[in-house]
């Protein structure tokens, strides 16, 4: 038994040990490969078979996505023990068909070029890379078996290197040995296999300089940069030399192998924050702002072609590089070292020739000791006439513009509604009357702020629009002819394009733009000479079998004589010309027209939402606004926001009048004149900017209800953040519609009344009316009695919601003593009832009583919860809500 437990313990130890001890240990992973029986394996088009014959095949062999590969063991071992690099075996599933990967970090004992010797059965790779870099360097590799393999590695004893030594066994003997000869013996190597006496260096399985967490404060694109922050000189100035004298010392200062240097932060932030020192909102400054450094990288995207002059200023030191040869490195001592301010030499300003829209990678380094601190990078553009250096955030990018990832955020502005109850999908326009859900769209729930990132739902493929840009390049055939212009107030040229140059199915009606050398460039609306109001234009004429002709209108003659393409132009005499050119047709592409669309709620959810939004208080307020215009009509002007008229226009005819209030009364009574049967019939979505600036006259442009909102995608734009105000038909008092940021001058406003839709007072006070609730069972009926006592509040409208358990009771009838106009509506799970005085001539100061009768399906002793009162609302003459509690 003892032996059994011991064996069990020994078996379990390596496979369950998950901790990492750090220095003195390395990690291992062992895989069962080849299905454990020698079979080949394929995943996603990548296969391995037999012994590894390349790095790619080795990668496949240890890829657990491969059906033939299974991770069987992992843990840590001593590097020079008999279970690892000295010919031993880390735990493995069997003696054949396995692969073992040893990994971790080492720091060699010596600086210089080591000679390396490995021996493995079967294939092996012995590789390393400097910590923080990505590309593996190979000491040795062998694809096959089983010779001594020799290689070299030039190492620095002050640096940590990440390593991965791996070998695989197909069948037969298996081992891996790592040996080396120190740099001092490089000319006559003396090899030793790794052992406790020949440890090679320090080994660890805990990353020596862990990568800081990436902080993302800006999206990739314009005015964004990547940064790294280092604590230098031990964080207190007591370690290493201060203030770099040159570029090389800057390299050392930001090298984590340098004593006293630690990489503390990394992330992406705005270029403005990184390069304009917006104190105190700068990039991170460790050590309370002393003894630190920044490395800021990104792309400079010139807006102009020509000579830029860059200028750097800082306290303490800095430099600025441009990777002008685009080789991925910043080379000191070349034109790439643009400006610098070292402890030794400095060059604050420097000219660089750049090309418009051609991104150049840049790097700014900044070192701060103690005392004052700042960093500024500025420049002048080629077009600048004054020596006035500025920072232009539009020319600073975190990545090349073409590499900016597509990103789309929607931000719905709700009010008093749980945003998380809504989901959205993205649809594309099939035709002017049909949309269909994108194949890549699955529902996304809005967060608590009404926001959602719908990037994954958007179809970003560009599709042809059936329109073509025509360009001309010098050729050998005269495919274009221009005729003598007619001069009225403009010049009118007839230009013929040979029909044989047109692709099948394309004619002049399909043309988006025509550019003929440096002679003509028009989309039919382009401005003339950059002068607004003097636009060129063109119109098609009847085409014949040989020529597609169009008229080109211009304010000056086509400059044939000054063209740079004189060899492609032949005068026909009399003012006509032939152009020896080839015509190129490029179809204009664009994103599909797409919409973000709310998913439909359930019937019950929609009923509840609409009855929450659209209540007797809204109807009273609407009547009040309409009736207040006096003998000559118009509005009373009590509305605080113009969107209230949009919400009041419940029949969607662009006019708010008594037809709308008639629908409102019908709605209170459960009628269907106001269609509230689907969300798109009641919800309105308006761009937030339009919403905020809605006027007393243009509100009629925003009366359409909808749940779909156009994405407004534009080629060349990758980042979107759309803010949309959500408002509702019938929500006259704005109880559930987004409130504009400021009150507005509304139509015929005479006085402003503050929106009277704040939560009604529900604590007992002199301003609150207590409604008595009684629920009794009388024979087979459950009777709900709501008694509004005598009062002096001038109540002109009441609304109650009585829920019922439709499985156990059925609604029967309502009896009301109200002297006002009564209304009621039967919904799927509740009854809405109340009364209203639409002209305010009557009120309920004398009190009233409502009785709601339900029939019980089963004779239950208990009826607690079979019916309930879930909403109560009392309204004053101006539509204001009066506090009410039900007791």
């Amino acid at each position: 038994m003892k032996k059994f437990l011991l064996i069990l313990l020994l078996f379990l130890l390596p496979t369950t040990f998950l901790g990492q001890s750090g220095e003195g240990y390395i990690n291992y992973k062992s895989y069962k490969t080849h299905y454990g029986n020698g079979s080949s394996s394929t995943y996603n088009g990548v296969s391995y078979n037999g012994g590894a014959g390349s790095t790619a095949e080795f990668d496949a062999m240890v890829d657990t996505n491969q059906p033939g590969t299974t991770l069987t063991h992992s843990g840590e071992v001593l590097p020079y023990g008999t279970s690892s690099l000295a010919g031993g075996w880390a735990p493995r599933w069997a003696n054949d068909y396995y692969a073992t990967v040893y990994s971790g970090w080492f720091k060699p004992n010596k600086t210089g070029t080591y000679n390396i010797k490995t021996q493995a059965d079967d294939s092996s790779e012995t590789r390393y890379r400097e910590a923080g870099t990505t590309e593996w360097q190979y000491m040795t590799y062998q694809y096959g078996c089983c010779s001594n393999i020799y290689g070299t590695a030039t190492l620095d004893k002050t640096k940590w290197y990440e390593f991965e030594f791996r070998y695989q066994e197909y069948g037969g003997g298996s081992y891996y040995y790592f040996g080396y000869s120190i740099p001092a013996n490089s000319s006559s190597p003396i090899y030793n296999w790794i052992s406790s006496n020949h440890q090679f260096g320090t080994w660890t399985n805990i990353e020596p300089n862990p990568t800081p967490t990436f902080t993302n404060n800006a999206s990739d694109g314009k005015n964004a940069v990547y940064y790294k922050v280092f604590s230098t000189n031990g964080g207190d100035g007591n370690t290493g030399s201060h203030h770099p004298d040159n570029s090389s010392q800057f390299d050392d200062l930001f090298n984590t192998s340098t004593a006293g240097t630690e990489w503390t932060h990394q992330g992406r932030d705005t270029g403005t924050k990184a390069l304009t020192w917006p104190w105190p909102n700068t990039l991170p400054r460790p050590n309370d702002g002393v003894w630190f450094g920044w490395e800021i990288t990104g792309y400079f995207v010139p807006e102009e072609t020509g000579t830029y002059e860059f200028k750097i200023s800082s306290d303490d030191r800095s430099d600025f590089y441009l990777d002008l040869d685009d080789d991925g490195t910043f080379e000191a001592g070349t034109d790439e070292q643009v400006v610098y301010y070292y402890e030794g030499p400095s060059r604050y300003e420097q000219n660089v020739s750049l090309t418009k829209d051609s991104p150049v990678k840049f790097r700014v380094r900044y070192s701060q000791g103690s005392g004052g601190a700042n960093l500024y990078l500025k420049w002048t553009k080629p077009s600048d006439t004054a020596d006035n250096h500025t920072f232009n955030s539009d020319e600073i990018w975190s990545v090349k513009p073409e590499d900016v990832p597509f990103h789309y955020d929607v931000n719905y502005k709700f009010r008093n509604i749980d945003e998380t109850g809504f989901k959205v999908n993205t649809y594309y326009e099939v035709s002017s009357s049909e949309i269909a859900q994108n194949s890549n769209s699955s529902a996304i729930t809005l967060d608590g702020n009404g926001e959602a990132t719908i990037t994954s739902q958007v179809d970003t493929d560009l599709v042809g629009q059936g329109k073509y840009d025509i360009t001309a390049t010098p050729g050998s055939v005269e495919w274009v002819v221009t005729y003598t212009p007619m001069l009225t107030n403009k010049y009118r040229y007839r230009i013929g394009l040979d029909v044989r140059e047109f692709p099948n199915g394309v004619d002049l009606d399909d043309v988006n733009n025509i550019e003929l050398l440096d002679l003509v460039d028009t989309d039919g609306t382009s401005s003339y000479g950059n002068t607004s109001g003097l636009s060129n234009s063109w119109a098609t004429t009847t085409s014949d079998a040989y020529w597609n002709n169009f008229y080109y209108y211009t304010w000056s003659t086509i400059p044939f004589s000054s063209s740079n393409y004189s060899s492609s132009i032949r005068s026909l005499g009399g003012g006509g010309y032939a152009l020896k050119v080839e015509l190129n047709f490029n179809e204009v592409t664009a994103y599909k027209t797409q919409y973000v669309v709310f998913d439909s709620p359930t019937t019950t959810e929609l009923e509840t939402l609409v009855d929450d939004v659209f209540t007797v208080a809204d109807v009273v307020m609407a009547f009040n606004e309409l009736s207040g215009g006096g003998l000559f009509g118009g509005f009373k002007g009590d509305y605080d926001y113009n969107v209230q008229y949009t919400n009041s226009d419940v029949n969607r005819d662009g006019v708010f009048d008594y037809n709308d209030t008639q629908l409102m009364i019908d709605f209170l009574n459960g009628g269907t004149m106001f269609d509230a049967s689907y969300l798109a019939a009641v919800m309105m979505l308006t761009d937030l900017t339009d919403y905020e600036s809605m006027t007393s006259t243009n509100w009629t442009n925003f009366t359409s209800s909808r749940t779909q909102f156009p994405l407004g995608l534009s080629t060349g734009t990758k980042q979107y953040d759309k803010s949309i105000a959500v408002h509702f038909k019938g929500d006259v008092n704005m109880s559930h519609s987004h409130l504009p940021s400021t009150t507005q001058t509304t139509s015929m406003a005479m006085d402003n009344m503050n929106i009277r839709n704040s939560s009604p007072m529900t604590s007992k006070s002199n301003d609150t009316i207590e409604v008595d609730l009684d629920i009794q069972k009388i024979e087979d009926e459950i009777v709900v009695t709501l008694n509004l006592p005598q009062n002096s509040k001038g109540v002109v409208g009441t609304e109650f919601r009585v829920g019922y358990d439709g499985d156990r009771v059925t609604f029967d009838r309502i009896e009301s003593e109200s002297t006002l106009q009564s209304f009621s509506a039967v919904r799927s799970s509740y009854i809405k009832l109340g009364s209203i005085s639409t002209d305010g001539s009557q009120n309920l100061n004398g009190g009233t009583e409502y009785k709601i009768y339900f029939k019980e399906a089963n004779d239950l002793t208990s009826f607690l919860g079979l019916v309930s009162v879930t909403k109560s609302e009392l309204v004053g003459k101006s539509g204001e809500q009066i506090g009410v509690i039900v007791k």
Partner: protein
Amino acid sequence: MKKYLILILLLLFSCQKDLLDDLEPTLPQEDMIFKVEESSVVDGQTIFFNIDSEVKHTLIIFDTERKSVVAKQSFRPTIGLNDFQIFTKSLPKKKLQLTLETSTEVLKSTYIVID
């Protein structure tokens, strides 16, 4: 020795990460409903409570946000343990207060959560 090995084994396994249930803890139901401060209630649940007088009592379900009564039922109890059914389908899905009252005082109170 056997004990020692078993102890090592136990130690080894106890070092393994515990499996944690990601689900939010569910509020338990409680039939003796006024014995707890808060409990979840399901449709048709029978609740029990003791009453020591035969005067008219009322069970009241109260919405503390609206400060309004949602539902109520008055009854003549028997002295001792009484039972009562609560139906939840018409009730708002939220936390409500349930009280047992006479015409003069609130005898018992608890919170019920309707899902």
